[in-house]
């Protein structure tokens, strides 16, 4: 038996939600998957035993029968009679409960069914996401778009700026808001003016110009932020030069910032105006004092964490976290090699792995960085990544080799990393600072049964659940003192061109944060 349970808070009073949910023929008005709905045999749509016939948007056909309807408990259940996918013995229950202190509604939608075993996971996620979650949000949107109609009362939102709208001098990057994806914006809230670093075209640091921009109010699922601090990452340089095709000119680069929530759009329940927050995720657009973006990957930051630190360390910290826990699960007494152990992610990896009880062997390029790696908790520090390094790893592990090597150096370290691994060791290649690794044979990996991973940051923060988990793990590690984020160097937003030039020339030490 597979069980699916989804729940949501709808920013709509419970009686209004129930009035729609209890109508067994109403899905067609609010559920995005349903194209046509009909109650068979002319029965009333709230008669227990009534059968509804659905035609889906994709042309599929299904029939469902109402089994119970309880107005007192605001609960109903129904089963599938016929469906285009194998959900045998499917019985679902919807239950509403009031949120008494917000005039909102808790909606729980659950079911049990017997799928073919090899499709259980796929079908469970289809039911959870495409039917339940999409349906709950669909009805919320439907009711909020009717706001103003009798019986619908929106929960009061924070007061918004009421300056008149002005034409936007800069289009938001296309990937922030694909045309036609959003329903018309709610009339609440108005545009705000802010400053943003706009990249007029791909090129050198001189293409970055500070401009006044017009920032629209948040739409459904969006949040508008006043960003006091913006993190600068090397990927921003790649975006500027066009090496990565992530910003289409004219556009705003940047993927990491921290500040305060100014207002939230409909359907956003995990954030509220005034929350101190940060994010480290695509789409680009972080180089700005005010920004509207999808709220899912924006996380609240703990009181004890400074806003500049959050802007400097969220992306690097989350990276270190998933490398040590998800890509490879580092255990006590594992031998862990960290290359470039004095760098941004390398420092955090070294600190965190050593806090996890691993035996950390660090590599660096010079004496000064060796002292940084030692301060980060490395048990052994090697300068350089040649045969000395491989010999040291063998010696420190009784000839066994390393369990995992974290390698962001790429071309210059790949072979040494390979040689330093133990049987069944794991090479985690997460960057290529020295250049492209190029094509490699996988055959030689069998000589030690090695595993190779090439993780991508974006795949470990795919949705709010993953992002929240990653951020909470980082905050917990900071709180326990497993890792520390050093004070970043602060520069004004209009110094961004110089900052990029310094970064490209390797003239910077530690993280740089732009102050807006």
């Amino acid at each position: 038996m597979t069980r699916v349970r989804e729940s949501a808070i709808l920013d709509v009073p419970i009686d209004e939600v129930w009035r729609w949910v209890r109508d067994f023929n109403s899905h067609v008005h609010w559920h995005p998957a349903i194209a046509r709905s009909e109650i068979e045999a002319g029965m009333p749509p709230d008669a227990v035993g009534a059968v509804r016939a659905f035609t889906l948007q994709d042309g599929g056909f299904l029939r469902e029968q109402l089994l119970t309807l309880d107005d007192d408990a605001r609960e109903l259940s129904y089963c599938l009679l016929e469906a285009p996918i194998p959900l045998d013995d499917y019985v679902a229950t919807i239950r509403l409960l009031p949120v008494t202190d917000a005039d909102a509604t808790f909606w729980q939608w659950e079911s049990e069914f017997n799928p073919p075993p090899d499709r259980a996971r796929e079908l469970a996620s289809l039911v959870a996401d495409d039917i339940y979650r999409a349906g709950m949000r669909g009805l919320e949107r439907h009711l909020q778009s009717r706001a103003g109609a009798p019986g619908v009362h929106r929960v009061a939102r924070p007061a918004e700026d009421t300056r008149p709208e002005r034409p936007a001098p800069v289009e938001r990057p296309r990937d922030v808001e694909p045309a036609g994806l959003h329903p018309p914006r709610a009339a609440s809230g108005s545009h705000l003016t802010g400053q943003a670093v706009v990249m007029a075209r791909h090129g050198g640091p001189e293409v970055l110009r500070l401009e006044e921009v017009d920032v629209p109010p948040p739409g459904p699922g969006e949040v508008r932020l006043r960003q006091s601090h913006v993190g600068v990452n090397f990927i921003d340089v790649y975006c500027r030069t066009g090496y990565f095709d992530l910003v289409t000119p004219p556009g705003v680069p940047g993927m990491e910032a921290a500040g305060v929530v100014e207002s939230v759009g409909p359907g956003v329940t995990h954030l509220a105006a005034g929350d101190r927050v940060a994010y480290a995720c695509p789409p680009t657009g972080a180089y700005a004092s005010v920004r509207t973006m999808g709220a899912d990957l924006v996380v609240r930051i703990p009181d004890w964490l400074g806003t500049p630190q959050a802007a400097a360390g969220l992306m690097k910290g989350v990276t270190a976290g998933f490398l040590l826990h998800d890509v490879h699960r580092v255990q006590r007494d594992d031998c862990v090699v960290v290359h470039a152990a004095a760098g941004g992610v390398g420092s955090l990896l070294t600190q965190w792995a050593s806090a996890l009880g691993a035996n950390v062997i660090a590599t660096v390029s010079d004496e000064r960085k060796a002292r940084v790696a030692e301060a980060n908790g490395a048990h052994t520090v090697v300068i350089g990544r040649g045969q000395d390094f491989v010999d040291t790893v063998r010696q420190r592990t009784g000839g066994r080799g390393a369990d995992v090597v974290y390698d962001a150096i790429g071309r210059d370290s790949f072979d040494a990393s390979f040689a330093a691994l133990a049987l069944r060791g794991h090479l985690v290649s997460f960057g290529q600072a020295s250049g492209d690794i190029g094509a490699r044979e996988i055959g030689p990996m069998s000589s030690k049964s090695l595993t190779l991973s090439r993780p991508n940051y974006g795949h470990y923060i795919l949705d709010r659940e993953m992002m929240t988990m990653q951020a909470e793990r980082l905050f917990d590690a900071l709180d326990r003192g497993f890792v520390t984020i050093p004070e970043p160097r602060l520069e004004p937003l209009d110094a961004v061109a110089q900052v990029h030039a310094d970064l490209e020339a390797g003239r910077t030490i530690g993280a740089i944060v732009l102050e807006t």
Partner: protein
Amino acid sequence: MTRVYVSSVIPAPAATVWRRVRDFNALPQWTSFVAESRIEQNLPSDKVGCIRNFTLNDGGRIREQLLALSDYDMSCTYAILESPMGVENYVAKLTLTPVTDGNVTFAQWQADFDCAPGREQALTEQIGGGVFQAAFAALKASFGGR
């Protein structure tokens, strides 16, 4: 029998909120109106049957007995043995439910009790507003909510 029901949304994952509230002796840590609390006879605070003996900020003393505790449902049921409120047969239940879309927590607190005729309204307000809602507000604030 009079029923009080209060519910709220706590901006943190249910497992996190549950860690805070499942300790039957932790009221001083997460509410604003309890000055001190102890478990009688030195029993563990998650042993069903244990009695918490706590003092309110205004000096009132209350003894409550843990009737049920479920880590599976994330719920806790208890009865009042002794209090200055003038309630009889008072049984309350606190339940947390995960909200999957948003990874926050739906929290419900309900109490059923008997009292002298005419006092229902005052007690409903005192328990629902002064105790349950006040505790939820403190819990929300502690997780960074409004």
